[in-house]
């Protein structure tokens, strides 16, 4: 049973192949952009080097975010395409779960933080349980300052993990009981490690239904008081009135 993992939801992209006995190989691109160019060549190269025939894959796993929009979409589209073509199961795992699982040996309250830009982070709280981590709050986005206040209110030792921690270091610096993990990005190696038991338990999604995990961030409408106002254009072929109104 060999599984392909694709993680392009943050600024460090990776792909990995793993079996029941562990990771067989991986490729990492530590650069903010270029997911599109990196992904397929990396998969093909990795398969060649590890001697894995892609048509023998037992499943595909993908990081469904929250994270960087472009990477997330590229990763999910690629994973869906491969899974559909090979008619193998597809597993989607949230980026925050991957970060938390990566530090599951911590006894502290685990708080993955992904830089969401716009001076916000994606986050959730986790606790280590036998065999992994358990999420104990919703996936959400908030300002690092609000998160710092929430951490303070919890009066617990907290381990921050993810690129949001160093990015907003100033917000977390005043907190005494906070440690920042060296790990900063989700990885395809963690992804496949988590995905294999899920595949074995048949906890997968159909390619048609797998969606990026969008965390709602705004309820505001765009202020469209002038959208319908048209200025007559000069030097243009006159559009007959009827068809103009139809548009």
């Amino acid at each position, binding site marked *: 049973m060999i599984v392909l993992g694709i993680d392009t939801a943050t600024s460090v992209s990776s792909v990995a192949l793993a079996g029941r006995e562990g990771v067989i190989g991986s490729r990492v691109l530590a650069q903010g952009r270029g997911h599109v160019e990196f992904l397929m060549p990396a998969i093909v190269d990795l398969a060649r080097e590890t001697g894995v025939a892609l048509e023998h894959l037992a499943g595909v796993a993908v990081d469904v975010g929250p994270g*960087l*929009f*472009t990477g997330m*979409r590229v990763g999910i589209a690629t994973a869906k395409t491969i899974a559909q073509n090979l008619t193998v199961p597809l597993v989607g795992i949230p980026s925050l779960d991957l970060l938390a699982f990566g530090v599951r040996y911590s006894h502290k309250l685990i708080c993955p933080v992904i830089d969401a830009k*716009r001076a916000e982070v994606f986050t959730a709280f986790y606790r280590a349980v036998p065999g992994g981590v358990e999420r104990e709050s919703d996936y959400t986005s908030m300002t690092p300052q609000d998160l710092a206040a929430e951490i303070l209110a919890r009066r617990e030792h907290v381990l921050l993990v993810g690129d949001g921690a160093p990015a907003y270091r100033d917000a977390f610096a005043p907190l005494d009981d906070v440690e920042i993990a060296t790990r900063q990005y989700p990885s395809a190696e963690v992804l496949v490690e988590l995905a294999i038991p899920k595949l074995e338990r048949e906890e997968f999604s159909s390619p048609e239904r797998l969606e990026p995990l969008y965390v709602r961030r705004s309820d*505001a409408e765009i*202020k*469209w008081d002038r959208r319908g106002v048209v*200025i007559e254009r*000069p030097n243009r072929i006159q559009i007959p009135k009827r068809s103009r109104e139809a548009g």
Partner: protein
Amino acid sequence: MAGDEITTVCATPEATRAVAAAVATLLRPGDVVALSGDLGAGKTCFVQGAAEALGVRVRVQSPSFVIVREYHGDIPIRHVDVYRLNSIQELIDLGYDELFDPARVLFIEWGDAVEGELPGDRLEIEITGTGTEERRIALRGRGTWEQRIAGLPSEVAL
């Protein structure tokens, strides 16, 4: 200084492009230009003039239907139109935050509609129809652009 604006009147679309080309001499990678004006005011026309001056060799087309278009030039540009969107969440889901790229100049049509989402440092271009062909173009600098706008070539600052 805040709120100062430079206005100029353009008799033809060609004149609008010429003003845009002059403005383009100030543009650097990472800059954000927000355009406002009614349908047909000439927002895309302005971007065409600026893009040509930035070394874009193909004709810039309205991004209304595809929302984002990208062009290679001496300075690459990204041209966004939020006209078809209704909510800020839709804008975010389109990867709005990733459109801001330090290597490119970003033009946003209907920028005034999403003002709260624009960066503090930006150049605002407001185009108003004053006759069949004639357009009034107002340039306003926000943030660091309050100073930078003073560097405009004199042919713009009428």
